[in-house]
């Protein structure tokens, strides 16, 4: 059974948000603003910002700097 921890719950919700809005949803083949590399970068930036140990394990060493801004294609 899971013990309820509000801070951990907030983090879990944010991770689940990232797994959805950045990684899934309707996409247009070859015509997306965020490249796959950009999304990974954002992922790493936000997840490491969250202090999630699993992020570093999944994506390797954390990258420095803030998430890159969107650029129009």
């Amino acid at each position: 059974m899971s013990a309820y921890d509000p801070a951990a719950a907030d983090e879990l919700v944010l991770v689940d948000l990232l797994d959805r809005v950045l990684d899934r949803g309707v996409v247009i083949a070859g015509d997306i603003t965020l490249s796959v590399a950009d999304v990974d970068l954002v992922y790493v930036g936000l997840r490491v910002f969250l202090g999630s140990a699993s992020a570093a394990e999944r994506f390797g060493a954390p990258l420095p700097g803030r998430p890159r801004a969107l650029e129009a294609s």
Partner: protein
Amino acid sequence: VIVLHAIVRSPADAPDGAHALAIGGVAAVVTRPSELSPPEPEALWAHERLVESIASAAVLPARFGTVVDDEAALHRLLAANEAVLLQALEHVAGCVEVSVRMWARSAMAVASGGTTSAAVGPGRAYLQERREALHAPRAAAEATHARLAEVARDAVERRGARQEVLVGAYLVPRGDLGAFRDAVAEEDRDLGELDLLSTGPWPPYHFTPRLEVPR
């Protein structure tokens, strides 16, 4: 540019602050910001809230940052993908998505299958025990995924990080949410060092098509 937030069936489904462009049997919920927001938490939540505010039985959320150049391009895109969109809308109609993770409290639990056995034995017995232990969390994850998928209309399993033995997304009819939560609670009961963590309801991000650009 036009930012695509979601695909719905009727333009009447567009929420405040957005508008919808109807093309054939589907409609695109879009905004026209003066500049694109960087993918930071506030902007991600703004997109998510907009999608959540769509009062419609069937919504296909778009990935954050999905843009098209102009209305003509959007028109061509939706017209070319109408059939696949209508099929996807029918699939998700009346449903929401629920996230379920099976999480090992420690790396030790991943290796020991929920029990904290520190057995170190020599030879074949040790290797045998080790092999079985390594497979136990995976077996628990597969059993739970299969059970939850039974209650859901559709299910997708994602790759998880090391301590995540299961990361699943489940498409659940709104009316079955109570039954789904009960199933999660039931599965969570005897997992030992494994926890089930669930969030939702979410829009059905994991049950959306990829749109092909017409040539």
